[in-house]
């Protein structure tokens, strides 16, 4: 039986989990809650995790499921960044201000936000976290083929948006 250590095994995953949760919910405070929730849940279940191949993949799966539950609850207010409530923690402002500083990045952010959740999550895990198809399939619980198809659709759609700027200007 592996002895998991919260500080050394789980806590280092927090930022990655937070980013995925944020990608799905588009809501900083929510994402932070979800990250905390994920870590605590996995920690409390650590004795059942002996056959888990990758703790990281398992955490990401839990995180995505939790995020999707919340997203469904808050779908309406999370459609845009403006939905971030004003009593959000400091780091929410950090993200927002960083985005505001660069118009172009904010544009990409909005592009990604428009993608369906599955494509968005896959694009995030691939392009931002640098996971392989195999790992993404493991995290999302779908086939590698499914991952490729969804990634292809997401990238093609983004490419189309870029072509629009090239042709007509922003």
């Amino acid at each position, binding site marked *: 039986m592996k002895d998991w250590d919260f500080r050394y095994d789980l806590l280092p995953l927090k930022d990655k989990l*937070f*980013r995925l949760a944020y990608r799905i919910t588009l809501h900083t405070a929510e994402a932070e809650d979800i990250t905390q929730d994920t870590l*605590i849940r996995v920690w409390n279940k650590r004795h059942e995790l002996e056959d888990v191949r990758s703790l990281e993949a398992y955490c990401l799966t839990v995180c995505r499921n939790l995020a999707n539950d919340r997203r469904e609850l808050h779908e309406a207010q999370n459609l845009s960044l403006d939905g971030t409530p004003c009593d959000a923690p400091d780091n929410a402002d950090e993200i927002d201000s960083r985005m505001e500083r*660069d118009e172009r990045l904010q544009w*990409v952010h909005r592009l990604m936000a428009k993608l369906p959740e599955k494509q968005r999550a896959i694009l995030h895990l691939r392009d931002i976290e640098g996971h392989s198809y195999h790992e993404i399939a493991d995290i999302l619980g779908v086939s590698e083929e499914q991952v490729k198809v969804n990634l292809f659709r997401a*990238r093609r759609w983004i490419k189309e948006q870029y072509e629009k700027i090239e042709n007509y200007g922003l």
Partner: protein
Amino acid sequence: MDYKYIEQLLERYWDCETSVEEERILRDFFAQAEVPAHLAVHKSLFDYQRAEATVGLSDDFDARVLAQVEQTETAVRARRLTLSRRLRPLFRAAAAVAIVSLLGMAAQHSFKRSATSEGWDYSVAGYSDSYSTPQAALDSCIKVLEFVQDGLKTAVVDSAHSSKISGK
């Protein structure tokens, strides 16, 4: 400078044919300040990817989540305590049995010694016979005794030790 390689990578990126490594090369390429005009339009995408990868939680998150873990841990510990408490009589009984049997053994041992006033303290169980019949054993005994007798005869008896023996 030839940007054919990057152009090709970009094409393959859109077609989902690039590897994780190649995608990293693209990000690194677009990270430089000077990107040729015809590729510059895509810079924002890869800049965004890089920027997003560094987003993290604040430090006070650690304190909060650790506090929560601590809390649940104490709860778990409390539950475990009740479990051990439930089993405690069992261990007490086991310890009691162990102590009683130890004392019993010791008492029996000393009783036996005082009752017979014999010094022999070797365990009978420690011996397994080499001879199957008493006669064979007797023959061997006699041989050994003769050997010992011979040894004693030739031995220069240390007077100090022998007097000690007879003295006691």
